[in-house]
């Protein structure tokens, strides 16, 4: 299955049978009542769903424009939306009779969410993490280890997220008989972008029900940050047919698109093939994948999920980019006005929504997917502010 021309199964031959096995297992499982009940049980009683849709009154009043609602994925166990997918896929792995799961992680959020799912469901967990990220994210490495996972530093390439994915794929090529590769975003070869999207769509389904309950109408715009794009697809997907709802994905402009130090693959990338999918990638004229930058480690990826590429192509969703500095400002603003520390990833979405709100009227509604909490980013924020302490 493809999204227009995007997606596909661009993998070495050896991975074709395991991907087909996964596709078949998922097809059997996804509408199975027993499975749905079990997943729902864990999401409700373990992860903390449904998450609130909170009207950010103070922020809205301060900006004087559209009403801003926050979908509080940051309140989930583990502190981010990642767990919606890891519990789902870990259950799928068990159904397929796999005893081990492997995952890639950048900052460590998906690694932690995978370690949690592994501990919960009794699966052995190995997490691949770029050596540079292991160094930068010591607390999350420690957290994963406490949770019983093994963290494998990846020394190859740029030693970041894309290399961790390469290494996880190399592992899977040799171990697929007993191992499930638990991809953390809506990326990778088919059927991963579909599976992860389905598990994350719970965000959008809840949002729709909640906003109809509270406001009696659909929102005018939904804003979410996009790295690989799983939280964005999760909240967008149930609204795709509701054409009047603007869907806006916010990428990381890093130090500015013009500096080349960013990770805005939809805004500034070209079509290409990596990690099993046809999508947009930051790359040079020879197709060599570029190194990326963002203050938010979760957005620091040179590609994007194929469904986003398609939504952009057909014009159903808009994609914009926000710099490190703007995200940092939004981080501080939400902390002060609402008492909520957003993840730096989510702060990108918030930064754009705050600008957008000012241009919209007071009876219009924006929903921001607050995909994660910011406690994990305090070190980075502290460092960024040390140059400009007066911002506090």
């Amino acid at each position, binding site marked *: 299955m493809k999204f227009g021309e995007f997606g*596909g*199964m*661009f*993998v*070495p*031959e*050896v991975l*074709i*049978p*395991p991907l087909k096995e996964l596709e078949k297992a998922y097809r059997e499982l996804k509408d199975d009542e027993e499975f749905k009940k079990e997943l729902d049980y864990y999401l409700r009683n373990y992860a903390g769903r449904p998450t609130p849709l909170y009207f950010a009154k103070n922020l809205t009043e301060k900006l004087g424009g559209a009403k801003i609602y926050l979908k509080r994925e940051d309140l989930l166990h583990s502190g981010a939306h990642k767990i919606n997918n890891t519990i789902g896929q870990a259950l799928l792995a068990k159904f397929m009779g796999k005893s081990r799961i492997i995952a890639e992680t950048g900052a460590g959020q998906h690694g932690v969410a995978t370690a949690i799912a592994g501990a919960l469901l009794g699966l052995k967990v190995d997490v691949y993490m770029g050596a540079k990220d292991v160094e930068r994210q010591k607390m999350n490495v420690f957290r994963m280890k406490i949770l019983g996972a093994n963290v494998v530093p990846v020394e*190859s*390439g740029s030693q970041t997220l*894309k*290399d961790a*994915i*390469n290494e996880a*794929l*190399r592992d899977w*090529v*040799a*171990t*697929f*008989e007993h191992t499930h590769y638990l991809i953390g975003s809506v990326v990778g070869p088919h059927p991963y972008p579909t599976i992860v999207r389905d598990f994350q769509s719970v965000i959008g389904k809840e949002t729709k029900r909640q906003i109809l309950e509270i406001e009696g109408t659909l929102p005018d715009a939904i804003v979410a940050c996009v790295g690989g794009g799983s939280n964005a697809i999760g909240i967008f997907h149930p609204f795709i047919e509701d054409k009047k709802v603007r869907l806006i994905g916010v990428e990381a402009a890093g130090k500015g698109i013009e500096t080349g130090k960013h990770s805005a693959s939809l805004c500034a990338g*070209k*079509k*290409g*093939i*990596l*990690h*099993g999918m*046809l999508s947009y*990638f930051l*790359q040079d*004229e*020879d*197709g*060599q*994948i570029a190194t990326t930058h963002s203050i938010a480690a979760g957005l620091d990826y040179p590609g994007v999920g194929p469904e986003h590429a398609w939504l952009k192509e057909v014009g159903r969703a808009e994609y914009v980019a926000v710099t490190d500095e703007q995200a940092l400002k939004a981080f501080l603003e939400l902390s002060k006005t609402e008492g909520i520390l957003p993840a730096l990833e989510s702060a990108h979405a918030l930064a754009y929504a705050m600008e957008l709100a000012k241009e919209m009227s007071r009876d219009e509604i924006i929903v921001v997917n607050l995909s994660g909490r910011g406690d994990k980013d305090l070190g980075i924020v502290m460092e960024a502010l040390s140059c400009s302490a007066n911002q506090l």
Partner: protein
Amino acid sequence: MFRKPALITFITAGDPNVKATLEFLLVLDKYSEVIELGIPFSDPMADGKAIQKANVRALKAGTKVRDVFNVVREFREYSDTPVVLMTYYNPVYRMGVERFVREAKESGANAMIVVDLPLEEAVEYLSVCEKHDMGTVFLAAPNTPNDRLKAIDEASSAFVYLISLYGTTGARDKLSQLAFDLLSRAKKICSKPLAVGFGVSKAEHVRELIKAGADGVVVGSAIVDIIGRYGEDAGDYIEDKLKELRGGLNF
């Protein structure tokens, strides 16, 4: 496309630089029926450590796709030995399949292997290759079912590349039983020449595979390791290794 039994040797173009590549190609030429030349890529996800490092060295030296075509062109002034370009799909896609295949062909390459392009995604590629008379090589793995193996055979105009194990490229001490099982299955199903690769690093491996009926044997990482060790001066050491491997063809 080649004399049997064939020793097929692999190096990454531009490792450690393009000038050395031409020199190494001329050494490989003396001992190989077919030469596989890798186009360096930033994210070689099917490759083990040795070839990953070769890719890094080649890209660090500034190797471009155009340089790879040029070195094939220069090599053609000395030799008619078939050259197979081995690449990931993104460099091909980025340049445009049509232009890539045409320029590769014009430079003197005889066939292409695209590691991450399975049959499902290869429709356009196949028709372009046919149009430009570019040979195609698809890979088959130990877990490739028979019907698929047949389709791979049909799509491969040059030869079929049998992967000897579950894993990435890289020298291994012993051959896996999987290699022999796949080979015997492929011999019943396929009509094209069969080359076995991944993990083949010793004369003894070459001998065992040829005895078991392989038409060719691919050795890559064992040679690339030598380049990793000796850099530009690797020529003589490669020659020693090739002489040893060549011994595996005579029994």
